[in-house]
């Protein structure tokens, strides 16, 4: 693994995004706009319950989509094949993507949180900074799952369809719609291994129960582990030699 190549890759991915201002605008504005819509729909009381989890779920979705398409383009444009003939470790490439999208996610998370807390009056029992941190972790999780998912997509049509296939079941089962304890046994078993469940429970613990960092450190550790596993599996799907 090379820090030089990882940093160069992160810079290159950010340069690509910089040339696409409309994507930047959509990434930064849409989650905040959706939160506002949710606030108008629910009113103050229910917004306090759902707003914080949404701060984690929106970046999870958008980073999943953007990363899986970006990686798919790398595969289909022939640049991945070129890089695979160069002295570059697979993890350099994936880590570069991860770092670039984590930076973007951090900006997205800060803007969305600022709107939620300052303009929409989101009330959190716990530290708002901790919620922002969890939102960024969820975005990185979305990115790493997107890197993995892109391996199974041959076209951009397929990659877009992986959003409902990979992401929607996690949103349905994470505990947002129905608490995990009220699910049937098999659904609860499935929910208890899905990444977004841990993300939701950490956000819920901070915003509703006022948990501090030590209260959600287990969830953060599990999420970090899942991010590492997803990136390691994505590295396995990058082949230097193909048929």
């Amino acid at each position, binding site marked *: 693994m090379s820090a030089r190549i990882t940093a160069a890759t992160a810079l290159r991915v950010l340069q690509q995004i910089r040339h696409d201002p409309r994507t930047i605008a959509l990434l930064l504005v849409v989650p905040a706009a959706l939160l506002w819509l949710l606030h108008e729909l629910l009113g103050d009381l229910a917004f306090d319950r759902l707003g914080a989890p949404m701060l984690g779920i929106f970046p999870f979705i958008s980073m999943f989509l953007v990363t899986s398409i970006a990686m798919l383009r790398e595969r289909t444009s022939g640049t991945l*094949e070129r890089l695979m*003939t*160069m002295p570059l470790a697979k993890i350099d490439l994936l880590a570069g993507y991860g770092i670039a999208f984590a930076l973007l996610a951090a900006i997205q998370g800060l803007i969305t949180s600022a709107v939620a807390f300052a303009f929409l009056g989101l009330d959190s029992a716990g530290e708002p900074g901790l919620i922002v941190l969890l939102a960024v972790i969820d975005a990185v999780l979305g990115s790493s799952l997107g890197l993995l998912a892109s391996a199974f997509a041959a076209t951009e049509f397929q990659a877009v369809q992986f959003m409902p296939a990979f992401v929607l079941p996690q949103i349905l089962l994470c505990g947002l719609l129905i608490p995990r304890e009220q699910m049937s046994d098999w659904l609860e078993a499935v929910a208890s291994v899905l990444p977004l469940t841990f993300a939701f429970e950490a956000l819920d613990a901070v915003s509703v129960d006022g948990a501090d960092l030590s209260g959600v450190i287990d969830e953060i550790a599990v999420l970090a582990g899942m991010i590492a596993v997803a990136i390691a599996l994505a590295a396995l799907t990058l082949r230097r030699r193909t048929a």
Partner: protein
Amino acid sequence: MNSAIEIDHLQVSRGGTPVLRGVTAKVPPGEVAGLLGPSGCGKTTLMRAVVGVQKVASGTVNVLGLPAGSPALRPRVGYVTQAPSVYADLTIQENLRYFARVLNAPAVRVDEVLAAVDLARSGSRLVGTLSGGQRSRVSLAAVLLGRPELLVLDEPTVGLDPVLRRDLWGLFHRLADDGATLLVSSHVMDEAARCDSLLLMREGELIAQTTPDELRAQTGEREMDAAFLKLIEGSAQ
């Protein structure tokens, strides 16, 4: 090291269909070797095997004394695919600076290689706005950054005007004079005359390894196209 490339009884199948049917060939170092034959004859597959990105069924490929695809070869071998493999949403310079960092080449190399492919004044243009020929030159420039000892170039002159084609062949020979070995494919037979040696392929087989002069003498034809046809007809009998 006697040969830059040594291919021995190489067989490759794709989807059950044989693409290379036991190719054996050698390319000496410091030469511009032309890989010629009609499209679909297996040129790209042979080049991919030399670079080490092709799964092979049997046979061996040694490059610069090591098995093709060895990690130690990655800084020493450069490969340019037929479709330009550069980032359309970056400028020419951003593309080359990235590849230079990956290859650990000094930043000044970016300007040098841009001059070598005659794109020195277009560095700030977005690759997506370039013509096909310009894009393929950016792709070629990227591989020159690291000064590889072996360059594998898949149809690098397709779609270029005659002046540019002449200039690029001049560049290839300068690189060979500096000690590099080049394997250059083309399906245009008149480019064969510009090579030091020739690998002629047809339907997954190597039908001749020769030089332009030998091919002319053997077939009695001046034009490469006619010589190739005569060779095929001769081998069919």
